[in-house]
């Protein structure tokens, strides 16, 4: 069927462009795109839950932070090698997602949003409370020597770019595949009409829990990747702000689309970059964009594209 090949071509084309970008862009933008790809992984995580399953979590920073601290603390206190630390980070994020899911999924709608917000706030305060280990707001830095990935230096511009690219590519393609599987279709069914999905014999509660675990783990993966590539672990990444930002990216790029997260992060990044000449309070821009999107374009950029020019957009 042509529908699928078009979408595949689009995904592979985007990845190809990201590879080309490395060779043609000036250094500053290469660094920027590395960061964008890491954050886009985070946005993909939220998109699975919010965009595809219809569950709006306002507390995803706790999963990002679970990955980040799982990775950072494993290196700092256990002197774990990078790969092991990464696996531990994913386990930490998955475990937290499971516990949060079992509790928070007893609620729905507005209550779910507030419960996830409060769990994330609890997690943030826990990070601050154990400042002895986490260094609280100040955070801690991972030394270059601690960040060797199988002997490979990820602190160079090239190393960082291609590690970010590889993880992004895996998540991006894996995600695009996932939403085409029966599992993905059923998540969409739950988003569209939960009661109908249940009365077709689907165990809605189990699907939601699985979606939350996968979503939280991808977000945690982004957190660990951030710590690995940028060498910094801090409580800011657990704060409310980092729960709201991925929501903003996903909304801007287009919730429930495969390319939305990347587009959203990229747009927002360069919007803030461009506005930094006038103001350094980027959260003001974020707030304005959030309000305008909610009012005028709740489907986001990719959503509008799908509606107007590319109805086949996955």
């Amino acid at each position, binding site marked *: 069927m042509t529908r699928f090949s078009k979408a595949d071509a689009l995904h592979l084309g985007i990845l190809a462009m990201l590879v080309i970008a490395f060779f043609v862009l000036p250094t500053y933008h290469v660094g920027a795109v590395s960061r964008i790809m890491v954050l886009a992984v985070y946005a993909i995580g939220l998109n699975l839950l919010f965009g595809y399953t219809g569950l709006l979590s306002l507390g995803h920073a706790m999963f990002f932070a679970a990955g980040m601290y799982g990775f950072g603390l494993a290196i700092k206190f256990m002197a774990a090698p990078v790969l092991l630390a990464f696996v531990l980070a994913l386990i930490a994020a998955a475990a937290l997602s499971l516990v949060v899911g079992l509790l928070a999924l007893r609620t729905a709608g507005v209550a779910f949003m507030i419960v996830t917000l409060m769990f994330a706030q609890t997690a943030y305060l826990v990070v601050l409370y154990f400042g002895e280990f986490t260094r609280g707001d100040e955070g801690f830095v991972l030394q270059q020597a601690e960040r060797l990935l199988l002997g490979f230096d990820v602190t160079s511009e090239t190393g960082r770019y291609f590690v970010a690219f590889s993880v992004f590519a895996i998540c991006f393609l894996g995600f695009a595949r996932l939403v085409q599987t029966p599992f993905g*279709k059923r998540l969409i069914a739950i988003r*569209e009409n939960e*009661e*109908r999905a*249940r009365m*077709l014999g*689907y*165990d*809605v509660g189990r699907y939601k829990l699985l979606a939350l675990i996968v979503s939280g783990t991808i977000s945690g993966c982004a957190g660990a990747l951030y710590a690995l590539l940028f060498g910094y672990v801090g409580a800011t990444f657990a704060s409310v702000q980092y729960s709201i930002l991925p929501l903003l990216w996903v909304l801007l790029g287009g919730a429930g689309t495969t390319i939305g997260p990347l587009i959203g992060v990229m747009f927002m990044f360069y919007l803030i970059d461009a506005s930094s000449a006038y103001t350094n309070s980027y959260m003001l821009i974020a707030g304005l964009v959030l309000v305008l999107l909610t009012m005028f374009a709740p489907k986001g950029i990719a959503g509008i594209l799908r509606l107007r020019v590319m109805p086949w957009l996955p």
Partner: protein
Amino acid sequence: MNILETKGLTKVYGGVVANADVDFTLRRGQITALIGPNGAGKSTFVGMVSGRIPATRGQVFFEGRDISALPAHKRIQLGMAYTFQITSVFRGLSVYENVALAAGRTLSADPEALDRRITAVLERVGIKDRSRQIAGDLSYGHQRILEIAMGLAQDPELFILDEPTQGLAESEVADFINLIRTLAGETTILLIEHNMKVVMEAADYITVLDQGMLLAEGTPAEIHANAAVQAAYLGTAVDA
């Protein structure tokens, strides 16, 4: 063996009794209509049978098995299908995808069989030419037909239809009666219906609920002649 049986099924909503000790049996392979005046508790009853509404007390047996403790999705997995009183389809998805979700629970491992099933069902209900259309864009009548298609796609042992002809035009109702008659023998149908024309033409057997209680049972002819049923519908007391 009866396909479905309830014993003492009761639902109390904050002191108001919606269903009181309903003992009900459903004959396999027939079309049974569940009728009764507004507020008789018909939807509550099938809600408790399908598991959407938790029963206050009482038991439900499906294929001889006590399913009272099972959640709705498990009951559906045992071979029930349920269509909602108020149209409930996946409005943002295409007709094809809607039916695919219904059939996909059992067939998703085999894409070819799945496609065959979907095509066959859409053909049978007569909306195959609309399979690419978004469900939310369909006319109301077509959405109701899509609901029925989603029920059929599950190949159910027991098909519960909650007021399927509500809001349909005359000609659509006639098509519906024809469709439902072709299903007789193939599956068991429990039909909640207001439209007496549909009931009399489609049903093999009728059960009447009134004020949450079982009032009468019988063939269409028997029910037609039943004084108590007449009274319930006309609102006059039956002479003692």
